[in-house]
C-alpha cells in the first residue's frame, strides 16, 4: 500500500515528531517503498499460527515490592540532566488551558 503526505502529517502529530511540509513528502515516499517490502508478508500462510510477542517463554517475572535505596535516585541526581527545573521539580510544557483563555 502507499501512503500520502497528509497521512504522514497526521502520523507525525500522533508520534509527536515535528516535520516540515518538504519532509512529509520525502517520508511518504520512503514509507511507500518500505511498505512494498512489508506487504510481501501477506503471501505467508499464517492461518494455523498465533502471534509471538516474546521468545523466552518466561511468565510473570516479579520481584519483591520493596524500595531499594541503592537503586533510587536522590532528587538532585534525578534532576541532574533536566534542561529546566523549578524548586526541585521538572518543568514540563503547559498542556492545560482554562476555558476563558
Amino acid at each position, binding site marked *: 500500500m502507499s501512503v500520502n503526505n497528509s497521512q504522514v502529517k497526521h502520523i507525525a502529530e*500522533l508520534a509527536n515528531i515535528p*516535520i516540515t511540509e518538504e519532509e512529509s513528502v520525502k*517520508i511518504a515516499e520512503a514509507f511507500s517503498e518500505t511498505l512494498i517490502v512489508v*506487504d510481501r508478508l501477506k503471501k505467508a500462510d*499464517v492461518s494455523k499460527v498465533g*502471534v509471538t510477542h516474546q521468545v523466552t517463554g518466561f511468565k510473570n517475572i516479579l520481584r519483591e515490592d520493596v524500595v531499594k535505596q541503592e537503586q533510587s535516585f536522590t532528587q538532585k541526581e534525578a534532576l541532574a540532566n533536566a534542561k529546566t527545573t523549578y524548586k526541585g521539580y521538572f518543568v514540563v510544557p503547559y498542556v492545560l488551558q482554562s476555558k476563558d483563555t
Partner: protein
Amino acid sequence: MKLNELTLAESLAALDKKEVSIEEIYRDLDQAYQAKNQDLNIYLSLNKTALAQAKKASRKPLRGLPIAVKDNFCTKDLPTTASSKLLNGFLPQYESTVTQKLKENGGVIYGKTNLDAWAHGSSTETSDYGRTLNPRNTKHLPGGSSGGSAAAVAADLSIAAIGSETAGSIRQPAAWCGTVGFKPSYGRVSRFGVVAMASSTDCPGPLAKTVEDACILLNSFAGPDEKDATCNKEKAPDFTSFLDQSIKGMKIGVIYQDVKEIAQTNEKLLEELNILKEMGVQVEITKALDPHHAIGVYTVVQRAEVSSNLARYDGIRYGKDRSYFGDEAKRRIMLGTFTLTKGHADQYYNLAQKVRTLYLENYKELFKKYDVLVAPTSPSFAKEIGASASSPMFGELEDMLLEPSSVTGLPGINVPFYRDETSNLYLGANFIAPMWQENLIIKIADAFEKNTKWNSWRNKS
C-alpha cells in the same frame, strides 16, 4: 609487535607471567588511538581515568584491560549519546548492568564507540557524529550498528569490545570488519541501561579478535539481573569451557543455499565448510523458511517497538527535544506509529508477529535434525562508503540472513571464513543454535577458527 595487537587471552597470559605491564599495554593503545582514530572515527569519547581504574583492577579476572563499549550503554559520568544529537551532553546517572558487571570483573571502559544513531542501521553511516570507516579498507563501511566496536577490534584500537544487536548489529559489522561477533540467546544478557531499540530482540554481546576472547568477555557480563525482567534467571555457563572440544559426530545444516542473491558467497562458504567434514562433522545442505519474509517481520516489529521506546525522549528529564531526531529515527518512529494505529495493527503488526511464529516453528523442526545451522552472515563483502543512502531499507536488506534468528532470539556467532586479497575485505559465517545452547556454536566456531587460515590474529602475516 605492539601490545594493543594482542588478543584478550594473550594479554591476560602476558600480564600474569609479568612479561608486560598494564601501563605498557595502555601506552601502545594510546599511541594507536592517536595515530588512527581521527581518520577512522571509531571512538566518540574516551574514559580519561581508564589507566587509573586499570591499575586498581589488577587482581580481577580481566586485569584492568581496556574494552571498547558501544555508546548506547549508559555509563555513569561518561557521556552516552547513542550517536544522536538529541543525547548530546547526556551524562547518565546510573550504570548499565553490562558495564557494571564488566567493571566488577576488572574490565575497563577505554572509550565509547560510534554506531548508527539510536542503533538504527547497518552501516554506522547514519551516526549524527559522522561515519566510521572500515579499518580493513577505508573506502568501505564497517557495517553496523555496532560498527565502531567492530572497527575498534579490527584496528587493534581495543583489546576487545562490547556491542548490542537487535537484528544483526553485532554479527554483521563483525563480518564486514573480519572479527568475531557473538550474539548470545535473547535474555542471556541484561538489557538494563542499554538505550532501548526493540525490547523483544535487543541483546548485548562481545565483538572480539577470537572466539576464545569473545567467550572470556561474555563470561564477565552474562547472567541473571533482577533489573531486567526478560533476563534468564539461570546462572550463565562458563562459556570458555566449550572451547577446544571435540566436534566429531555433530550435525550441521547449511541453510539459504537456495537464496539466489548470495550464490557467490554461498559457494565460498560451502567450500570452507569442508574442513569441518574432515573433523568428523556431518555437513548437509537443508532448506529453511525463506529469509525474505523476515525483512517484513523485523521491519514491522522493530518500528513498532521503536515508536514506543523512543516516546520517552521528550527533552524534559534529559536530552534535547524531539526536533533533534535524525531522519532515520523520525522515519522509524512514524512507521511504527502507523503500523500500530487502529485499522493497520492487524494488517501489519499482528501479521508480522504470526510470521515470527512460523520462523520459530521452522527452527524447531530444523533443530530436531541438526545441532547447528550455518549460512553467510552478510550477502556480500563490506559495501562502499555512501551505500546506506541507496534505500530506506538498506539495513534490512543487508541483515536479511540474520533477521530470522534475531526475531526468534537464537544465539549466533560470526567467524571470518574468507578474505579477498585485493580488497582485504572479509566474509563471515553465522553459526546458530537453539535457545540457550551457546555451547554448540562455541564448539563449532572455535574449531573452525583454529583450523582455517582466516582469523587475522591467529594467522599473523
